[in-house]
């Protein structure tokens, strides 16, 4: 049984996995409400909260799985990327539990977790495939050639996709987190009501392969500009107009993502696309991707919601795969704010 911890941002999570894919427990303690008064995640508060809940959450997970620590054969924890102070709580606790029991320990990359969450629910995902990570902190495209074999092809040059949803919602005072709210309101609006243009991407980027990169800041600015021009104080935007506006924003955001997806799949002749991260919950993205897949004979996979948002189940899965291959981390493993996928240090 593999025990795993995730504490990279504002969710503490513990999971217990009977490899390869039988989840015995997957608990998530969210701390969203703590950060709301500050309008964003406060790293020190996040770390303090992780510290408070990690032991009780661990104890609850054992109870839910109906096991004791004696049944655990390996321990995994997220070590990057994320907030250092937050990461260190789960990482330090996991390392010392492992040391105390003489169990193998492995540090896991959070993004690698997202890329692999799909395997907990599907045993037929073909390789190579396109792995798309779209969350509040990341928007990245990888060719996944096999387990632990990833090639980064493109990423956002500015805002992450989820960040764009959150910022647009904030601009329109729709509430937080913005993604799900925009999704709901957009369903009531006309996606073609306002035409926002797609960003033009130059060839060069920090990854050297500019053509697959995406950008959301231009779209966000265009929405803000539209509001400025149309939101006249004595005539606030009507609910219908807001629905049309967010529907049009969402339509364009999905277009931006789909443009890169279709380019990569075509250029590299890939048989499948796996989408993960919080934005994978977006109904318009799911529909566009699924329809496109059917049309182009490409299989599309979306892990279920609880595996798309931050969770420890995906960390347990990646950890179990590394441990099964005899790969472990040393006791001196540190947490890092950034870090490429697939490279273990």
């Amino acid at each position, binding site marked *: 049984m593999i025990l795993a911890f995730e504490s990279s941002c504002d969710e503490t999570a513990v999971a217990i996995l009977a490899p390869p894919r039988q989840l015995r427990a997957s608990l998530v303690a969210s701390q969203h409400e703590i950060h709301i*008064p*500050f309008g964003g995640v*406060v790293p*020190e*508060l996040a*770390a*303090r909260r992780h*510290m*408070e809940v*990690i*032991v*009780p959450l*661990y*104890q609850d997970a054992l109870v839910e799985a109906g096991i004791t*620590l004696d049944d655990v054969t390996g321990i995994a924890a997220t070590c990057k990327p994320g907030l*250092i*102070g937050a990461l*260190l*709580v*789960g*990482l*330090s*606790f*996991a*390392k*010392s*539990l*492992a*040391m*105390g*029991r*003489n169990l193998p320990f492995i540090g896991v990359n959070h993004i690698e977790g997202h890329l692999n969450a799909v395997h907990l629910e599907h045993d037929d995902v073909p390789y190579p495939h396109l792995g798309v990570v779209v969350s509040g902190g990341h928007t990245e495209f990888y060719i996944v050639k096999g387990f632990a074999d990833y090639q980064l092809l493109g990423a956002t040059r500015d805002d992450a996709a989820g960040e764009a949803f959150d910022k647009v919602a904030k601009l329109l005072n729709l509430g937080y987190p913005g993604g799900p709210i925009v999704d709901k309101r957009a369903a009531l609006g006309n996606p073609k009501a306002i035409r926002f243009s797609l960003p033009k991407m130059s060839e060069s980027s920090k990854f050297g392969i500019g053509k697959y990169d995406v950008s959301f800041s231009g779209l966000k600015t265009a929405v803000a500009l539209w509001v400025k021009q149309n939101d006249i104080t004595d005539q606030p935007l009507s609910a219908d107009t807001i629905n049309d506006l967010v529907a049009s924003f969402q339509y364009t955001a999905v277009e931006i993502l789909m443009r890169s997806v279709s380019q990569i799949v075509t250029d590299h002749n890939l048989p499948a696309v796996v989408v993960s991260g919080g934005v994978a919950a977006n109904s318009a993205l799911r529909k566009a991707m699924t329809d496109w897949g059917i049309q182009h004979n490409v299989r599309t996979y979306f892990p279920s919601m609880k595996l798309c948002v931050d969770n420890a189940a995906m960390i347990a899965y990646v950890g179990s795969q590394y441990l099964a291959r005899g790969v472990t981390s*040393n*006791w*001196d*493993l*540190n*947490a890092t704010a950034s870090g490429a996928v697939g490279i273990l240090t």
Partner: protein
Amino acid sequence: MILFFDTSTPNGILALGQQDRCITFSHWKAEHSHSQLLPPYIDTALQELPNGISELTHITVGIGPGSFTGLRVALATAKGLAIARNIPLVAIPSPTVFATLCQATTDYAACCLDAFRGEIYLGIYKMQSGIPVLQNDIASLTPKVAAMQIAALNGSITVTGTGYDRYRDQFPSSVIPGNTHYDKAAAVSILKFATQSIQNNKTHQPAELHPYYVRDAEAVEKQKR
């Protein structure tokens, strides 16, 4: 067998032993990487025990105040070990750790830990048969206020800690600088302190022990202002 460690300051400290026997003692400098250094130090220390980690009966940990991240690394590590071994925790405030380590022979000892933002965490102790007994509520103060409280004490006084090192010129010249060349005798002093706490039943279960922050997160302090 007691394992002790403190990572509340850049001076990481670890001791293994009990009562007046110290089996190993290590200290290291780390600004930001206690999480990298502490576990290997623990692992190496435990290898000194003929029966390894199974000999541990208590984990004793410096709980702060100090570096917020340092406290959490120590506490999370202590909790993991305690749960894995099913043994209790013993908590020592970090200023008490350093007041103990300097083995003062004066009437009083004071520990000033650098709290940054122009402040220090002050603990004032009466020395009783070589053991420091806390006299105040540990708080974050300006060095000036701390120096005034120290100057008001009646008797000889030893001062130690990273805050004293940093703001030394602001303290009365009559105080005696504490010994900071920690050796096995210093380690024995802290192990004795831990042993005494255990004898007095001052132990904790992992879920109930929390870092002793003293201060709120900066964002919360700002909001209050």
